[in-house]
């Protein structure tokens, strides 16, 4: 073969190889990149009035994504997150945002974070199940979402649902051997969190056939009468479970204290929802003139919160979230609540589940497999251990805070409940405020409280009735005595007059003496 033919043949072949490899090679890397890019859609309200608004939660999610990237082992190699944030407006807007996004980009997201509001989360969860997209939320806490068989099959809840709070209180009640309670809650805001929380408790207690008295009130209404409320409590059960804003709880406790209810006859529990200070942390201090009274009142109040583990990592997280939130114009008492922590932990959970799914040979497209990997799993979250049960719901770990030193007014954690074990544990190094850890309330005794209330519609008073009865008895006694003596007296007179009629004058003195002596004898 002539060398020039060989050379040109080589060149042609090389050129063909290069051309062939070029576009095909590019396509391969694009596809790979696409496969390793996790598209996340976050659906939360824009409005900062919500505890789980975009402004509050976004820093937490971004913190989680960053720490996964930095740790190296967090995400499988080559994988990255792409986050899109949309306003859910706590309603249908969430669903529309999802559908619009899919219509626009012609592809579905790989992960859905949120919504939290019940009515926003439900249709999104159905669409997620229909499209095989995993959905993780620190919300959707209502009881209905527990049914994961059909429409909610792709939902995993990373924060304890309200029913878990109910289970915790049940364990607490069993510990104290109580079976009756008054449930008191505020139904003032649109999300009705206290209502749903109490529903969780009510459902669990009803199954155990506990007797419950339920009262709700609207703390923002003009007709809200604190004294009426406390009177209603007096006619209810001895154990009172309350859910309302921190200030309202304090006012209720002060009113109860004035009515003498805080001396051991009643046990009060306050639910601090979502570990947010807007529901109060059970602290009696406000720096106002009622502090001293409140301190006394709170001696029989215990607060139920989510279990908190102190970790240095958490401090760093808190500070970052706070500074990010403040940059957005939020100025609050606290920036980290159950939702903020929850969504951070949700990102970690997804990364874990994805890694496991990849090990089995699945990809990010296998939503069902990834969801399966999020179930029945325990891992370290930002605020402590996170345990997801086999149903895709987080086990709830709770703490009970009580006043251990009534003089100083110090409040600390006196007991913890571990959802996974279903066990309530008193902390051993803490002095328990109530005798021997169990408050014995005589639940059958009619409540005897100092009668400070004026009797508005009493009929005859007790003393009046006694007076009448005694008077009647005396009167009757007198009448009987009179009749009795009169009979005797008459007989005596008649006898005397019959016998000594004519000798009246002579025997007058004698007769009178006789009468007198008879009378005295009688």
């Amino acid at each position, binding site marked *: 073969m002539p060398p020039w033919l060989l050379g040109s043949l080589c060149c042609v072949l090389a050129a063909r190889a290069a051309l062939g490899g070029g576009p095909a090679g590019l396509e391969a890397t694009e596809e790979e990149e696409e496969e390793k890019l996790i598209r996340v859609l976050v659906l939360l309200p824009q409005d900062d009035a919500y505890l789980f608004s975009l402004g509050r939660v976004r820093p937490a999610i971004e913190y989680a994504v960053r720490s996964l990237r930095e740790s190296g082992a967090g995400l499988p190699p080559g994988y990255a997150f792409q986050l899109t944030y949309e306003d859910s407006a706590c309603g249908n807007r969430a669903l529309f945002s999802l559908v619009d996004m899919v219509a626009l980009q012609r592809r579905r997201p790989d992960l859905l974070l949120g919504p939290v509001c019940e009515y926003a989360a439900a249709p999104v969860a159905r669409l997620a199940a229909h499209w095989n997209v995993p959905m993780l939320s620190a919300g959707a806490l209502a009881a209905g979402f527990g049914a994961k068989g059909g*429409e909610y099959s792709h939902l995993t809840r990373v924060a304890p649902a309200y029913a878990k709070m109910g289970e915790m209180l049940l364990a607490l009640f069993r510990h104290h051997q109580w079976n009756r309670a008054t449930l008191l809650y505020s139904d003032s805001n649109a999300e009705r969190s206290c209502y749903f929380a109490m529903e969780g408790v009510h459902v669990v207690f009803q199954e155990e056939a506990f007797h419950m008295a339920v009262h709700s009130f609207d703390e923002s209404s003009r007709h809200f009468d604190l004294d009426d409320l406390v009177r209603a409590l007096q006619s209810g059960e001895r154990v009172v479970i309350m859910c309302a804003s921190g200030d309202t709880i304090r006012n209720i406790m002060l009113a109860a204290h004035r009515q003498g209810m805080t001396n051991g006859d009643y046990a009060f529990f306050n639910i601090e929802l979502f570990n947010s200070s807007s529901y109060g942390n059970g602290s009696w201090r406000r720096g106002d003139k009622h502090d001293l009274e409140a301190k006394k009142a709170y001696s029989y109040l215990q607060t139920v919160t989510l279990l908190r583990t102190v970790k240095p990592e958490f401090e760093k997280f808190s500070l970052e979230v706070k500074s990010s939130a403040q940059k957005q114009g939020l100025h609050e008492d606290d920036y980290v609540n159950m939702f903020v922590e929850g969504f951070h932990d949700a990102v970690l959970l997804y990364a874990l589940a994805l890694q496991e799914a990849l090990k089995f040979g699945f990809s990010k497209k296998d939503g069902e497999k990834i969801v399966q990997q999020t179930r029945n799993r325990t891992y370290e979250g930002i605020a402590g251990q996170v345990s997801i049960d086999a149903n895709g719901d987080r086990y709830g770990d709770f703490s009970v805070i009580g006043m251990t030193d009534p003089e100083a007014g110090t409040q600390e954690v006196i007991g913890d409940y571990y959802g996974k074990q279903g066990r309530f544990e008193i902390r051993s190094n803490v002095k328990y405020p109530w005798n021997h850890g169990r408050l014995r309330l005589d639940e059958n005794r009619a409540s005897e409280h100092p009668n400070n209330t004026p009797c508005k519609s009493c009929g005859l008073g007790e003393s009046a009735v006694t007076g009448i009865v005694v008077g009647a008895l005396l009167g009757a006694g007198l009448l009987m005595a009179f009749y009795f003596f009169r009979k005797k007296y008459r007989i005596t007179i008649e006898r005397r007059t019959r016998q000594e009629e004519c000798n009246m004058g002579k025997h007058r003195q004698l007769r009178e003496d006789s009468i007198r002596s008879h009378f005295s004898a009688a």
Partner: protein
Amino acid sequence: LTLAVVLPERNLTYPWAWPRVGPAVRLAAAAVNARQDLLPGFTLGWVFGSSEDGHGVCSEMAAPLAAVDLQLAHHPAAFLGPGCVYTAAPVARFTSHWRLPLVTAGAEAHGFDDKREQFGLTTRAGPSHRKLGELGVQLHRRFNWTRRALLVYWDEKVDDRPYFFAAEGLYVQLPTLRNLTVMDVVFRDGGNFSFIIQEIKQKGRVVYVCCAPETFRELMLQAEREGLTRGDYAFFYIDIFGASLQGGSFPEPQRPWKRGDRHDGSARRAFEAVTIITYKEPENPEYRPFLARLKEEALTHFNFSMKDGLVGHRGGT
């Protein structure tokens, strides 16, 4: 142009089930495409999504999913259906968000009257219960009944609640007559009717009843035993689709009281106090040939033989 149809695929208990409505849609599309003056330059086609869930009932959870799938896959110009009330609402909210018109012959409930926000692009080509209420108002004006009316309806809350919504139409419209008091009695399966009879005796002379035909016959038999059907009370049976008048159409006499059992005699007497309100069957000349072609179409393309009666003819709308 694509029309997206969301209706129950197989369940014939609904008047707007696909085997009934499908032939009508075919005929309509063919008619539109045949004419040069309607939609020049466009061809009308349609795609179908089922509003039924796993149990075969019209579902407010399955229908929006079907609607979303149709929208993303075909980008329709308009939506047809659903018919069930609870199913139509979320689909209508979607179409309103997408700025697409929705036309339905169902969704008769009063809630769809408010066209200000979410139902702004929803058109109801069929009857609506507000109109039924207006009929009630006209009846009262005609007969000068100005004091009271009683609504008796069956409501088990597990289905699409057609009887509840029909009663609601009257409930909302009748009070527009001044000084008229409207009261309602709801009942469900398992009870005897003596409670209802008591309520009727106490609360009303003019009674509107919405329930299934069998239940109504039972109620009227009981009423006859209690002597309510001798002219003191006026009973109106709301039978939208003439389900109780299955005896076909004119000239065959319709006997809603007849079942062929031993109570027929008392039932006939009881029904003397009853006036049945249904939708008017169309009387224009095109109707009969249209029905004939509809039946043919149903048989050939949908393997379904259409029965006579208003239910069957629902598809026509």
